[in-house]
Structure formats: C-alpha cells, structure tokens
C-alpha cells in the first residue's frame, strides 16, 4: 500500500510540473500581454512607456526564462505578486479559497447526503412513483443551467419576497449574516449537485440489490434497513466515491457561474479573472492548487475504494 501511495505521489509531482509549464505557456501564448491590455484602456501610454513597462515586468524575456524564474520562486515558496489585486498572490488566493470553502463545503456535503438518500429511496422500488420523482429532480438538476436557477432564486427570495440577500459576502461579521448570504448560492449548488449523486446512487443500488447476497440476507430475515445500509450500500459506494472525489476537487476550483451570479468572490471567479487579466502569478498558483487537490482527491478516492473493495487490493 505504501509503495502504491509513493508511486502515485511521484506521478502526481511529475503531472503538476508538466501542468505548470503547460498552463504558463498557454497563458503566455494568449494574444495580448498585460501591457497591451493597459494600452487599450489608457490611450496616453506611449511606445516608450510600453517598452519600459514590459522590461520592468520581465515581459521582454522569452517565455521559458520567465517560466523558469517563476518555478524557481515557487519551489522556494515565493509565489509572487498578483498584478490584478496588488497583493501577494498567496494572500489573494487564501481569501478566495476561504470564501469558496465556506460556500462549497456545506453544499457538497448537503448534495451528497440528499442525493445519496434520494438515490437509495429511488432504487428500493424502481419505476415506482418515488423513483420517477427522484429521476425528475435529477434530470432537472442536471439540465438546468446554474445561472438560470440562480437568477430565479434571486427574483423569488431576494427581489419579490425580500427574505434573503441577492448575493455577495456580508458586510458585517457574524454567523447569521453569513448563513443568510450563503443561502441562495448554496441552495443553487445543492440542487444542481445532488442530481449526479442521486443518479449514480440509484443506478449502483439497483445493481447491488439484484445480487444473490442481498437475497440471502433477506432470506435470513435481516431487516430491510440493514439490507440496504449494511449490505447493498457498501457495494454500491464505489461510483459514489468517484463522484465525491471529483466534487472534492471543485472545492478549490470554485463554481464560476454561480459565483458570478451571486457576486461571491470565490476561486472560480478568481481563476477566470487571473487568466483573462494575464495575472501569471495568481493564475498559476490557483491552477497548481487545483491540480494538486484534484490529484490528491483522486488518490484518496482510489484508496477509499481499495479499503472498501478487497478485490482491488490484489
């Protein structure tokens, strides 16, 4: 097991290194550098100013040299300065990460709990009324665009009823303020997120409930609750863990559209702005963090699957 973990960590490190260069090169090769963007916004910038600013920011250097300088700094824990937010990149990222976690952690847990529960209930009686209802909810969640649901919720709860704020983080500290501001974006993400859990769980549970050991357990007089939770669910949990692993990575990559609709300063919006604004330091740091967390989440999901399914250990 330890050697497997070691191998996977080594593979992950190589992947991160390759990804960092690919991301740097892709941002660098996009048309227009930060100075071009500045010139478009300020006609007073002359050719002399542009040359001076390019030299100052190192933009007159070849892409590979710039990448190597960035990588050397990053390896020493120096992630540079965010051009867009005029602050050290790690500080900007830290704030956005906390905002994203505050929004996404509870919604991911809620989505998983509600989705798995609905999936189990639907799988108990396939093609029954409850199954059709759960399927309808799941399809609605999968096919509904997040911006549309978000705007609908804003119109209903913020504009028409005036019960909840339309978006943004609270101006004042306090749990109540945070909860009211998180309510609408959280509800949007939960509704959208539970759909995939419900569908995966339903399908896996229907498969699991067809197995002979389930029939045996029922024949031995095990109560239905025990049959479902102790016998069927562990066997159906592998695809659910895969979905959870992927969801875990989104905790740090944010939810761009929902963040934009609810003016929530999270990671999704931050990464988008950093890439479009040619903020190399911030974009690279955010992308690397996302890549590392995704790889680790996949590793953890694999380990969890191995722990649950003894067949995988061989």
């Amino acid at each position, binding site marked *: 097991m330890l050697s497997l973990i070691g191998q996977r960590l080594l593979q992950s490190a190589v992947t991160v290194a390759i990804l960092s260069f690919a991301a740097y090169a892709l941002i660098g090769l996009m048309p*227009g550098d930060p100075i*071009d*963007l500045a010139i478009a916004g300020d006609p007073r910038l002359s050719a002399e100013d542009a040359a001076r600013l390019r030299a100052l920011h190192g933009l007159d250097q070849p892409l590979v040299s710039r990448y190597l300088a960035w990588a050397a700094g990053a390896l020493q824990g120096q992630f540079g300065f965010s051009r867009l937010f005029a602050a050290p990149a790690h500080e900007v990222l830290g704030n956005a990460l906390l905002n994203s976690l505050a929004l996404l952690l509870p919604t991911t847990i809620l989505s998983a709990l509600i989705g798995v529960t609905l999936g189990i209930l639907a799988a108990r009686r396939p093609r029954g009324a409850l199954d059709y209802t759960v399927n309808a909810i799941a399809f609605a969640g999968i096919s509904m665009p997040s911006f549309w649901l978000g705007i609908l919720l804003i119109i209903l709860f913020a504009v028409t009823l005036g019960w909840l*704020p339309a978006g943004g983080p609270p101006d004042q500290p306090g749990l109540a303020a945070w909860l009211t501001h998180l309510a609408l974006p959280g509800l949007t993400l939960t509704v959208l997120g539970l759909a995939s859990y419900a569908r995966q769980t339903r399908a896996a549970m229907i498969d699991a409930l067809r197995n002979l050991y389930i029939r045996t357990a029922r024949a031995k007089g095990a109560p239905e609750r025990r049959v479902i939770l102790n016998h069927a669910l562990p066997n159906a949990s592998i695809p659910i863990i895969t979905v959870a692993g992927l969801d875990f990575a989104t905790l740090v990559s944010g939810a761009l559209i929902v963040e*934009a*609709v609810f003016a929530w300063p999270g990671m999704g919006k931050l990464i988008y702005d950093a890439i479009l604004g040619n903020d190399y330091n911030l974009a690279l740091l955010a992308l690397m963090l996302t890549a590392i967390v995704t790889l680790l989440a996949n590793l953890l999901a694999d380990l969890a699957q191995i722990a649950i399914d003894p067949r995988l250990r061989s």
Partner: protein
Amino acid sequence: MALRTALTALVLLALPATIQARDQLTIGLTQYPSTLHPSIETMAAKSYVHGFTLRPITTYDADWQLTCMLCTHLPTIEGGDAVRETAPNGNPGIRVTYRLRENARWGDGTPITADDIVFAWEAGREPATGMGPAELYRSLHRIVVVDPRTVTLHFGKLTFQYNAINDLRPLPAHLDRAIWQEDPRAYRTRTLYDREPTRPGLWSGPYRIAALQTGASVTLERNENWWGDAPAFRRIVIRTIENTTALEAALLAGQIDMIAGELGLTLDQAIALERRAGQRFRIHYQPGLIYEHIDLNLDNPALADARVREALLRGIDRRQIVERLFDNRQPVAHSFVNPLDWMHDDTLPVTPFDPDGARRLLEEAGWRPGPDGIRRNAAGERLSLELMTTAGNRSRELVQQVLQGMWRQIGVDIRIRNEPPRVFFGETVSKRRFQAMALFAWISSPENVPRTILHSTEIPTEERNWSGQNYTGFRNQEMDDLIENLPLTLDREERRPMWRRVQEIYMTERPVLPLFFRSDAHVWPRWLEGVRPTGHLAPSSMWVEQWKVTQ
C-alpha cells in the same frame, strides 16, 4: 382612533430607523479596483473610489471646466502665475506656480504640502517605479518649492492645457517616501496604498477607506480630518457585482441603494429598469466622451476610395439606430468631438441617411449590382467587407446586425466576425489586422487633441513596436499640422477655427464612421439628491459633499 394612534406610533418608531439606515449609502459597481495607488495603472473603479477618498490638484468639473481642488486658484498667464520660458532642450516651455489650500490635510491630520507633490514627481519620473503614462513626468523637468504650500512646476513643453495637472496626484511623503526610497523597483508591491489601505494618512478626500473585502467591497468612512464641507453619509459601501443582471437584482432587493453610471448597468437594462421600477429610482442618462465608431482600414482597396467610405456612411440610419436600440438616450455622433465640448462646431454639414446617394456614389466608384444584389467591381470582385467587434458585447452585436441589414440595402455584403476583447484589442486592432472595419469606442477627455488616433506618425507598425492608435492608417498633412499646432495655440478663440478645420477634415475624409456617443445610466434612489455625473473621466464621486438625503 386607537388604530390611528397605533399607526402613528409605528411610523414614529420606524422613522429613526429610516434616517439611521440612510446614514449609510451602498453603491453597486461592476469592477473592483486592482490597485489603490493613485498613480499606478488607470482604472475606472479606482477613479470612482478615489473620487471619495482623494483630491487632485486640478480636475475637470461637471461642466467640463478645469477647476482647482487642492489649489487655491487656477494659475494663468494672464494672472502672472504662469510664465513662458525656454526649456533646457531649447523648446518653448512654461513655469506654472500653484498654491495649495492652507487647510488641506491628509486623513491623519498631516498638512498636504509641496513635499507631497515633489515626492509624487520623483517617484513618477523614476522608470523603475513603474508608473503608467510617463509623458507628464517627462515634460515636467523641474519643481521649485517656493514655500511649504507653494510650488513652481517647470514644463519643457508648452500647451494650451499648461495649467491642467489632473494626473499629478500628491502622494503622502510622510508615509510612502521611505518605502519608495528603500527600493523604487519594489515600490509598486510595497506601497501602503495596497499593503495598508486603511491608514487614514493615505487619504485626502471627504472619506477614507475603512475596510476592504478583496474582489467584493470597499467600505468608506468619514475622514475626520477632511477640510471641506461635511459629506452626508457616515459610511459608504461600494460593492462589486460584475454581472449586471445580478447588480440589478441587488438593487431591486434593496441590497444596494444606487448603481454608479461610470461602471453600472448597460443602457438597455437601464431603460427596461426605468419602465419597471421608475417610481423607486431616478435614472439619469449622461452622454459622455465615450465615442462608438467604426475604424475603417484604409489599406483595404475598396475602403481606400473616399466615395465608398461616404457611401457607407450615407447608407446607415444612425438616428434610427439610436431611437430603436437606445430609446434616444445616446446622441448621434458626426465626428469624434462631443457636442458637449466647447470646440464642437455644429455649423458643419453632417452626412444624412441617404441610401440613394450612397448607391450613386458606389456606382461612380465602379461598384455595380451583381445577380445576388451585392455590388461587384470591373474585376468581378464582390463588395464584401468584414465587420469586427468585441464578442459578448450585446449592444455592439445588435448594432452590427442592424448595420449589416442597412448596408445590404445599398448592395454591400457584411461579414460579421467577432473576437473576445483581449484578442480584438490586444492583437487584431492594435496590429491593424482587421480586414475592413472594426467597431469599438474611444475614451477621451475634454478638448482632447486627437494626436494618437489621427496623426500619421501614430500608425502602428512593427518597427514602432505596434504603438500608436491611428488604426485606420489615416495620413493627411494638414491634419498633422493642425495636431502639431493646436496644443501650442494658447488662446481659445485662436484655436476655434483650427478645431473647426480638424472636424471638417475628419468629416470629409471619413477615416472613421461615427456612430454615437455612449451614455452612462446612473441609477440612484429618489431620496438622494446632488449627484452630478460628468460624462468624462472625472467620476461623479469627486463631488460627494454635494450629495444630500431628502425625505
């Protein structure tokens, strides 16, 4: 009776809460300032925040007149405090003496002095500091401190805007100078404006920054050491909501009180909002200096012919576009000079919507209708032109489609190809890679000499490292001469005929098809009065002391 008493009591109880609530103003904005340093980078969101928190020495007011904010009076040649002289390089120069207000102080009580201007100049002219446009610092070659409140600025260039130093923002030498001196190259990452922006001593306006939520909001509180009229609100919160639909929802939900027109709703959204909720909000449409137009690539063989350019202009009904798409809220443009600017000449003949005339001109130019209705020249080439703009800009894309239909009527085929703004501006337009037409906007300032967009030396080329904004490739010796001489002509009345001629050449040579001047939609609650949008780069927030709450 009991009911009436109860209702009266309720109203009385509610009243203080209302007044208390109006002690704070929450403003919605679609952009977050990337830096708060006054001289590093130019950004509308930053200017808006600085309108509340900083005072420049001079600026243009809402009537587009140059005015003093930190100085006691505008120095003039006639008044004797601006004197012509010869610059060290032998060129005509000028020295201008400014006197700062006696009571002007930073937010920590430290007086604003000549030393703060000297520091701003020293930091700005040092290339390693990395300030944006350096023209001011190149031209301002010497500063003499007469006394702590008086400075004489020596400019190596004489222009009619000799006393406008809107971009020379004093910096608090008592706080930031040591940081700059320690390492000018690192100053932009270490300045207190970004490291500790809540330090009161950084601010000189009616408000100071009290708190920041990166990317989300800026909270302002009254500056205890403000030296002017007291502003009405104890606190102002500026919230950033980039999505304009969400911004509108936040307004309707009462989460924000007003939307700044400088960075607010799109015009069509504001028009729809006015129809839906006009009773709750006052919506003011302020035409300004943002000029929507189509740059024509004069290297395109078809567009090199002035008759084709005129035909294209005659073929579009700009009045109808403005009426149908923008509810008549944006004035039609006939040149780059805004009708609100003093040098606008309304006696010049304007090009009317005249499709028959357009067809005639195209015939004269050798373009005759083909079997598909599109004109062809003698070589059989179709008159097919590419019209580009910024993808995702709904308003421009709508205009583009209307233009396509109008030009089709005169036999011109338009191919629409749009690109994301960073590609469009960063590559296609700035390197003149558009095949025929590029639709976008220019932002200028009052009485702006159009050197960068019309002088022949400003045509972007690889040799010039693609600098310059004469994207059309326009070359006209008389225009070049006028652009050279206009800044040197100090007397306004002497400039008037020169400006007329500039507009005349622009309107007859037509390197550009003028469309309209964009209007900003300012939305504020009915209980707020005194907001005066300017229409130029100085934001309405610069006169926040005049904002009042009415019941």
